[in-house]
């Protein structure tokens, strides 16, 4: 599907946002999504770090795809991704130590985030640099939207408000505990599937 001639640059860009949303549709990168989506601040910080690594690694992998024999592609992807992750980690530590402290181990763990290596393998390795750039941006936006929505729901109900602003004085703590993450993400996936199915049946009846 990806390699059909009709695909335009818009499709490359839009794929990761809804139709191929990394978290809700492809179901990759769930671990950091669950772990970091406790507060909106952390979620936004995490999506910036992921966007940096995803766009960087997509660009790099597609730029050197002619240099990469297929037997060597996994180690080469990993070297590229590790480099970008380490750079992101240093930059965060130097310029935003609070964010770096809050995200903790999840920044280095972007290395094993399936979104990055998944897009490198499924897209960037077989596509042009420009397409890969668009795919990276689209995927980052998709990740940002989902993790922010999850964080918004979890922080609001689990903490009683967003940031310093507290509205509920007896928040439902479970939402900022791991089970709350699973409940939120599961409900969102259900809604997404419901929405997709309804769209499909509507298209077939028309």
């Amino acid at each position: 599907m990806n390699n059909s001639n009709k695909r335009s640059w818009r499709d490359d860009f839009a794929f990761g946002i809804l139709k191929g949303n990394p978290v809700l549709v492809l179901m990759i990168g769930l671990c950091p999504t669950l772990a970091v989506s406790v507060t909106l601040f952390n979620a936004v910080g995490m999506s910036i770090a992921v966007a940096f690594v995803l766009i960087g690694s997509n660009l790099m992998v597609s730029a050197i795809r002619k240099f990469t024999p297929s037997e060597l592609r996994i180690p080469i992807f990993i070297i590229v991704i590790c480099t970008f992750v380490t750079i992101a980690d240093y930059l965060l530590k130097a310029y935003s130590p609070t964010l770096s402290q809050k995200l903790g181990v999840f920044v280095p763990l972007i290395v094993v985030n399936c979104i990055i290596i998944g897009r490198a393998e499924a897209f960037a390795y077989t596509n042009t640099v420009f397409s890969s750039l668009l795919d990276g941006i689209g995927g980052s936006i998709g990740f940002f939207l989902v993790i922010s929505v999850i964080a918004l729901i979890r922080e609001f109900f689990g903490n009683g408000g967003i940031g310093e602003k507290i509205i509920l004085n007896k928040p439902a703590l479970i939402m900022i505990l791991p089970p709350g993450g699973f409940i939120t993400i599961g409900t969102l996936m259900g809604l997404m599937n419901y929405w997709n199915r309804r769209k499909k049946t509507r298209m077939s009846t028309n």
Partner: protein
Amino acid sequence: MESLTKKIVDYIFRLVLLCAIASAALAWVYVETKPRIDLEEQKMLLAARQEVLPQAEKFEEESFIEKTSTITYIQGYAENGEPVGKIAETRKRGYAAPIKVLVGVDETNKITKVKILDEMETPGLGARIKEAKFLNQFPGKTIEELKLKKDKGTIDAVTGATISSRATIEAVKEGLNKFSGAGKREVSKK
């Protein structure tokens, strides 16, 4: 056979080249960011220490030997170089994981302030040991008074979190115990 060797050599060359480029890039970023990272870390450390020992300006790590074990702590000095208090870092097992506590005492071994450095207690329950309402009970207390009211002491536990509250108290006590008679011993500076 020969083509296989050639392929292997080629692959090794490619990987080595890529690694070299990656390392060079990393080295450059490291050199550029290292001073800032160190600075930020020091700032954070100083902020935490000053929080528990507000009257001190400078801090130095010192240690003394008691019986066979070496006890390390942080000595705080005022601007004029006069020692004004000490800080100990202790940890005790809480409900989920060790609770790391910073205890500040003045030169008469009275608690100035207690700060929770790190904990993994249940949010909204055990994690409320970080709140001022609980921690403000510590300054000025003697070691005998450091007990929960349930255990015939003077400290109010965090509601529903007896285990976390007890662990914090134990950690503070351990910090205090370190200094009992610290002034009389030979102190070696680091």
